C-alpha cells in the first residue's frame, strides 16, 4: 500500500477523480492556447484572403519591397510587389493542406503496415518491420532529398514525398501497440466468440491504440509542415507561383539585408504553426494517457 508519497502521487491525489480527457486537455493551458491559435490561423487562411484588397499573385512592380506597416500593404511586399499578407495566408492554405494531407496519407500507410505486421506478424510482418527499420536508418533530410530528385515538384508530389518519409514511426508505434493488445484479454475474448480477423483488428484492437495514434498524427502535421519548408529551402519544393510558407523562404537569404521581413514573416508563421501542433500533441498525450504526464 501507500508507501509513495512522492510528488507525482501527491499530484495524482490532488487531482479530482476521473476528469475527462477533454478536461485534462483543456487544463494543459499551452495546448488549449495552441489549439485556439491553429484554429484561428486555419480560419484566417480560409476566410481572409478574399477579403484582402490584394491577391497573392498580383504583381505590382512599382510596389516591390514595400516594408511592413508602411503603406497599403500591411506586411509589405515581395520582390515582385506582391502583397506579403495575401501570400502568407494563401501559403498557409498550401502549407496546412500539405501538413494535413501528408499526415493523413502517412497515417494510412503507417497504420496499415503496423496493423498487418502487428496482427499477423510472421515473415511478411518481419520483412515489413525490417523495411521500416531500414527507412528509419536514413536521416530524414537525406531521404527527402534523394526522393525529391525523383519527383517533379508540385503540391501533390510534395505531399506524397513527405508522407512517404514519415509513415515509419507510425507503423512502428501501431505495430507495437497491436502486438501488445493482441495478447490482451479482450482480444482473446473477441476471438473466442468467433469474431473474424478484420473485426478484431478494427473493432477491438485499433480503437484501443487510438490514443498514441492521435498524438502521432498531430506531431506528424508539425513534422510535415517543417519538412515542406526544408525541401523548399533546399530548392526542391513547391514551385511558384503557388506560395507556401517554405517557398516564401526559398530566396530569403539574398534579401536578408535589404528586406528582412521577407525572411522573418514566413519563418515566424512556420514556427508558430509547428509549435502549435507540437503543443497540441503534447496536450493530447497528457490528456489521453495520464501516465505519461511527466514527459
Amino acid at each position, binding site marked *: 500500500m501507500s508507501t509513495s508519497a512522492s510528488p507525482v502521487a501527491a499530484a495524482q491525489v490532488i487531482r479530482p477523480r476521473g476528469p475527462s480527457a477533454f478536461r485534462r486537455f483543456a487544463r494543459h493551458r499551452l495546448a488549449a492556447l495552441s489549439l485556439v491559435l491553429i484554429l484561428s490561423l486555419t480560419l484566417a487562411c480560409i476566410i481572409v484572403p478574399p477579403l484582402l484588397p490584394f491577391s497573392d499573385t498580383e*504583381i505590382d512592380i512599382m510596389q516591390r519591397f514595400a516594408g511592413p506597416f508602411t503603406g497599403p500593404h500591411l506586411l509589405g511586399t515581395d520582390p515582385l510587389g506582391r502583397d506579403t499578407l495575401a501570400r502568407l495566408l494563401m501559403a498557409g492554405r498550401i502549407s496546412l493542406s500539405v501538413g494535413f494531407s501528408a499526415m493523413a496519407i502517412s497515417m494510412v500507410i503507417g497504420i496499415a503496415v503496423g496493423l498487418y505486421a502487428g496482427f499477423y506478424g510472421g515473415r511478411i510482418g518481419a520483412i515489413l518491420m525490417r523495411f521500416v527499420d531500414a527507412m528509419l536508418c536514413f536521416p530524414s533530410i537525406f531521404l527527402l532529398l534523394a526522393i525529391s530528385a525523383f519527383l517533379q515538384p508540385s503540391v501533390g508530389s510534395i505531399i506524397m514525398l513527405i508522407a512517404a518519409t514519415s509513415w515509419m514511426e507510425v507503423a512502428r508505434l501501431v505495430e507495437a501497440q497491436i502486438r501488445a493488445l493482441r495478447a490482451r484479454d479482450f482480444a482473446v475474448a473477441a476471438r473466442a466468440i468467433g469474431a473474424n480477423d478484420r473485426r478484431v483488428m478494427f473493432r477491438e484492437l485499433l480503437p484501443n491504440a487510438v490514443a498514441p495514434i492521435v498524438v502521432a498524427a498531430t506531431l506528424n502535421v508539425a513534422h510535415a509542415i517543417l519538412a515542406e519548408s526544408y525541401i523548399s529551402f533546399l*530548392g526542391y519544393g513547391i514551385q511558384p507561383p503557388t506560395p507556401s510558407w517554405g517557398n516564401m523562404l526559398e530566396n530569403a537569404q539574398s534579401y536578408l539585408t535589404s528586406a528582412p521581413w521577407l525572411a522573418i514573416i514566413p519563418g515566424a508563421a512556420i514556427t508558430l504553426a509547428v509549435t502549435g501542433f507540437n503543443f497540441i500533441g503534447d496536450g493530447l498525450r497528457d490528456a489521453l494517457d495520464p501516465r505519461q504526464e511527466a514527459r
Partner: protein
Amino acid sequence: MGHGVRWLERKGDPSMNDHSTDRILAAPALRRRALLALGAGAGLAAAAPGFAPSAKAQPAQGMRKGQVVVGLSQEPTAFNPLMPGIEVDETIWMNVFDTLWYPMPDGSLVPSLATEVPSTGNGGISADGLRWRVKLRPGVTWHDGTAFTAEDVKYTLELIVAPGFKSRTRLGHALVRDIEVLGPHEIAWRMESAFAPYLAFLSNTYIVPKHLLAAASDPNTAPFNGAPVGTGAFRWDRRVPGDHIQLAANEKYFGKGPFLERAILKYVPDMTALYAQFRTGQVDAIIGTGIPANFVAEAEKLPGKRISKVSSGSLEVLMPNLGQPALSDKAVRQALYAGINKKGIIDVIFYGLHKPTESFAPQESWVYNADLPAHRFDLAAANAMLDKAGWARGANGLRAKDGVPLAFDISTTTGNALREQSQQLLLQDWSKMGVAAKVNNMPAAVIWGEFYVRSKFQTLLVGTGFRSGIDPDPSNRFASNAIPVKGGSGGNYMQWENAEADRIMVEAQATFDTARRKALYLRLQEIVRDELPILPIYQYVTAEGTKSNLMGYAPNINARQNTWNMREWYWA
C-alpha cells in the same frame, strides 16, 4: 555544339551565364590566314578598357607577393583537363596546365607551349589543311621537374582518342592521324580531313604529362587526376574538398609571372554568401557567376572594390518547342514576344544589369545585326495579332484555335529565384492576352537531360549560346538536320525548320569570303527575328568583382573563365 547552359542554378544567381566554348566569339588573329576566314571584328571582343595590366606597375619577373582568394559558386572537382568537367573546372586547368596557344581578349591566338601558332602562312599547316607541324617551346618543365617534350603532346592527343579513356570530347581530335615526334620540341600529324576549327579546339586542349599518366595502370583513375601536375604558372598545392583548392606559384614558369605566391579557389555554394564574403574581404575576387544582380548597385559603392560588368556570349531566351501545336504558329510566337516585358524583367528583376537584344548573336560579334526591328512591349498589339491569327477568346477568356488551347508550360531549373520572378512576370502579362501558361520547373539534372535534348519541354527559359565555338555559325542550333528528336544531330531542340535558313547556313559554312558570310548571317538574323524560333530576352552581363588593389585582372570574353591570366595578377 555551343549550346551551353549553366548547369546548376544557385540561389540569387543573377545571370545564367555560361562560359563555354561559345564565349570565343571571334578569332581575328586568324583572319589573314585565309584558313578559317573568320574575318573582321578585331577588338569587338575586347574587354572593358582600363583593366589591362599596366606594364609599369607590374612587378619584375620572379617577384612574388601574397595570395589571392577567388570565390566560385561551384566547386571545381575535375582536375584532369582531358576528362569530363564543367566550366568552373577550367579555373584549375588554365592555371595548372598550358595549351599550345590561347586566345586573347581581342581574339588573337598567342603561342604558349608552342613557339608559334601554325598557319598556312608560316608553314605550320599545309595548304590543303591536312598536314600540321608544331614547334614546341624548349626549356619547359613539368611541376615535378621533368622536361616537357613533344612526347607529351603526342601522348595527350593519343590519350584523348584512346579507347576506354573517359575523355571529355573527341570532336576534331578523332581526325588526327600519324602523330610523329620530329624532335624533342617538334611534332607533326596528319588530319583525316581538313578541319579548320581544330586550331581553336587546340587552344582549349591542355597538354598532360606522359611520364605520369602513361605510368598509371588506368589513366581514368591515376593519382594524377586528384593532384594534377602541369606546366602552368601555378602548381597544385592542396585541396580541401568542398571548400577550396590551393595553388602555389610555379617558380619555374616559362612565361610572365606568376606574381602571387598562392592562388586559392574558394567554393562558396551560395551566391549571396559568396557576395557577403567578398564584401567582408574574405574573398578577393568573384568571377564566373559573379555578384547577384540585386547586390550590384550596393557592390559598386563598396570602398576598395572594383566591379566589372563583363559581357557574356550567352543569351537568355524563351525557347518554344515548335512541336507543340500552338507554339508552331508564328503569329503566336510573335504575339508572345510582344507580350514580354523585357524592360520589366531586365530593369526590375535584374536591376538593369543585362543588355536587351534582338539577335541570337552577341552584340560584340562581327556578324551582329544591329538593325533588327526593335522589340516593343505592347499587349494591345499582341492581342490584335492573336485575334488576327484566329486565336479567339473562349468563355473563360482563354484563347484557342481549332480546338487547340493556347496553353503551355514554362520550365526552367528549380531554385533560381530571379528566373522564377521572370516567369511570374511573363505569366501575368500573357494571362492578359488570354494565354494560359503555367510554371513547370525541375531540377537541373532532370531538365537538361531527356527533357531538353529530346524536346519534351513546351517552353524553356534558358541561358545559352548560338554559335559553333569559335565561329558565328549557328547551324547546330537552327539547322533542320540538327533536331535530335527527328533523328538529327545537334541542338535544334526548338525543332525549327526553315528552308531559307538552312540554305544560308550551308552556304555560310562553305564560303571563305568574310563579307559574304557576314551578309548571310545578317540575313539569317533577320529571319530568326521574324520567325522567332527563339524569343531573345537579353544578353548576359556578369558583374565580376575584385579588390581595387588587385591588379592585372582582365576580363577576356574569349576565355572560359576570367582567371585565364591569373599569372599576371599582382597586389598593388
